[in-house]
């Protein structure tokens, strides 16, 4: 079927996962790590090009396309899979191992898909495999959350397929390529596909599956989840919709509203989910601007983001693994007994905030500079606001409330060795990418002529971040900083978790009422009719009583006279 002998990227992981049950429980975890590493080696060895072209029901499929864009996403997805597998080395749950491996493999396959049907297949596979990482928590709550997640993710796939069908009917091609010519209008098929990508990319109002589900997954599952689904969507946007102006504004909204939610959120994993949403906004803005610098910035930011976000989820996950909670109200002072985890968390927090010498600095500044070069003043200002906001929730709030701040009295053991190892590697990458940035820039889709470490960049970025930190100190000292409160904050999921069920309940009540009224009216009418009939035909009724012969004779005479008159007329 496949014209070339090259194995599609990710397939080794997807197929290999099904052999894990034959291994011992300890070897299963190692198996995930080995399969991911072998898959990375194979992927690096596979030359760029198009493989596996064949005809299927009149359409030409192209299962594998490796170019500069899919190459870098394939590499970072592999790295994320390896880091996550290392972090999950203690897990003795075969479901999670299979789910994680198939999920990562499907994401890798998807970013190397050359046609939309192949993309769709992998797209749905990521949805179906990843939900098991949520269900693996084993609680009633995670089951419900997983169901909501699955419906939304599969729904995104259905939108994608509808878009593909419309696209095929109108253009006769299912090639996965740019859908919007510069300045051109968007076709119906392209709109449906954009919407499908938007669901997975957590566009505003379509976003809440992310904050709903990621904090409900297992400690290790969240690390897998944070890497793949949303970045696959960013890849797809970069491939299909560069320079689509509406994405600039969608991205701006995405960078802004999650930071406000993150300020008041108590569950630190949920804070990280909001922060993930905010970082995706930077990438969506980059795709929308769409210049070579902006696309480079988007890809570089996705690359760095996957690593530092995994690091942050790993450190909060380690805290949760040891203490059983990720709530800010119940944590604090953990730096005493978990110094390594605290240190790694600080590196992750510095990287996401964009401190010089760390990875976020060399990628985010590309997107902000791209906005500057296009003279988009408002976009540029919004991205600066968002950068200060990142400093608030991920740079300060996460490490401060978990590891410093008010001492909770908890003295958990340090994270297990393999977790510290995984965090250490991620932290190493955060520093490495920030310092040896040309190594990353070399892999970017377009030629790079960009230097992050100019005096202006470094000084202005430090001004922004240090004064944001100063503002935090000021608010803390004056007791103006809002205290952490055990609470749940309503978001758009309220619409389908509360409003719809309530509406359906009201609707049900209304239907019952209307139905009751109609039935009662019908019965009353029928009863009235029957009573009338009874009155007429009862022994004393007009038709039921015995009439005297004289009356009958008069009536017969009248009728006969009538007939006679009619006959002569």
């Amino acid at each position, binding site marked *: 079927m496949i014209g070339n002998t090259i194995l599609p990227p990710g397939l080794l992981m997807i197929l290999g996962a099904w052999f894990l049950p034959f291994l011992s429980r300890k070897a299963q975890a190692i198996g995930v790590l080995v399969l991911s590493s072998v898959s990375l080696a194979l992927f690096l060895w596979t030359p760029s090009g198009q493989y596996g072209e064949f005809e299927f029901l009149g359409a030409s499929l192209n299962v594998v396309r490796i170019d500069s864009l899919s190459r870098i996403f394939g590499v970072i997805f592999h790295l994320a899979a390896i880091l996550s597998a290392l972090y999950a080395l203690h897990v003795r749950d075969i479901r999670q191992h299979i789910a994680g491996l198939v999920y990562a493999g499907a994401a890798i396959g998807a970013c190397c898909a050359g046609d939309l049907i192949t993309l769709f297949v992998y797209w749905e596979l990521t949805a179906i495999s990843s939900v098991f990482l949520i269900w693996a928590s084993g609680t009633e709550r995670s089951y419900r959350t997983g169901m909501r997640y699955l419906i939304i993710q599969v729904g995104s796939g259905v939108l994608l397929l509808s878009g593909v069908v419309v696209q095929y009917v109108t253009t006769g091609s299912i090639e996965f390529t740019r859908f919007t010519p510069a300045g051109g209008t968007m076709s119906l098929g392209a709109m449906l596909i954009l919407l499908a990508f938007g669901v997975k990319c957590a566009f505003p109002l379509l976003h809440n599956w992310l904050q709903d589900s990621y904090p409900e997954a297992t400690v290790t599952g969240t690390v897998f989840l944070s890497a793949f689904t949303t970045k696959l969507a960013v890849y797809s946007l970069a491939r299909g919709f560069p320079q689509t102006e509406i994405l600039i504004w969608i991205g701006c909204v995405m960078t802004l509203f999650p930071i406000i939610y993150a300020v008041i959120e108590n569950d630190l994993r949920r804070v990280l989910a909001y922060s993930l949403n905010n970082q995706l906004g930077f990438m969506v803005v980059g795709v929308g601007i769409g210049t070579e610098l902006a696309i480079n910035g988007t890809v570089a930011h996705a690359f760095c983001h996957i690593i530092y976000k995994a690091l942050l989820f790993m450190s909060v996950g380690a805290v949760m693994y040891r203490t059983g909670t990720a709530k800010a109200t119940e944590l604090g002072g953990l730096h005493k007994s978990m110094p390594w985890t605290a240190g790694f968390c600080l590196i992750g927090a510095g990287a996401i905030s964009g401190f010089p010498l760390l990875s976020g600095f060399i990628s985010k500044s590309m997107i902000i500079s791209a906005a500057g070069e296009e003279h988009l003043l408002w976009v540029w200002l919004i991205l600066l606001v968002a950068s200060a906001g990142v400093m608030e929730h991920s740079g300060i709030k996460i490490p401060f409330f978990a590891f410093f701040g008010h001492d909770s009295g908890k003295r958990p053991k340090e994270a297990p060795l393999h977790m510290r190892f995984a965090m250490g590697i991620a932290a190493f990458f955060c520093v490495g990418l920030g310092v040896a940035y040309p190594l990353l820039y070399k892999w970017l889709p377009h030629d790079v002529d960009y230097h992050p470490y100019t005096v202006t960049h470094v000084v*202005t970025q430090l001004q922004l971040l240090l004064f944001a930190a100063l503002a935090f100190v000021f608010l803390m000292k004056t007791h103006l900083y809002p205290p*952490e409160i055990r609470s749940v*904050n309503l978001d758009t999921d309220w619409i389908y978790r509360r409003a719809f069920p309530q509406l359906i309940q009201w609707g049900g009540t209304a239907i019952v009422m209307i139905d009751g009224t109609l039935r009662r009216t019908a019965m009353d009418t029928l009863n009235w009719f029957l009573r009338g009939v009874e009155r007429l035909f009862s022994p004393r009724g007009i038709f039921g009583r015995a009439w005297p012969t004289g009356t009958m004779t008069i009536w017969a005479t009248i009728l006969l006279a009538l007939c006679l008159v009619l006959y002569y007329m």
Partner: protein
Amino acid sequence: MNHSSNSPTDQTPEGDSPSWFERPENINKLIIGLLIACAIVTLADLFYTNPHAHFAIESTFAFQSWFGFVTFVVVVYLGKILRWFVQRDEDYYDR
């Protein structure tokens, strides 16, 4: 803040010696360090000019310093306001 702990076994009672980060004199040192750093990066504006300024506001003195401070405070206050509208009890969805 009231911290209710649901007590892992490996927990020692509170009251052990405060760590470096908890001693008030060290916290003050950190704050003074931050103030000095803020002053340095702000004054650094006097010693260079931005060769690739795209917007006029970018070249005003210490633009990102005050912008960072104000933005941070505004974001936190917006969060406080948002709480009035969206905050519910923790078991809101479980009821």
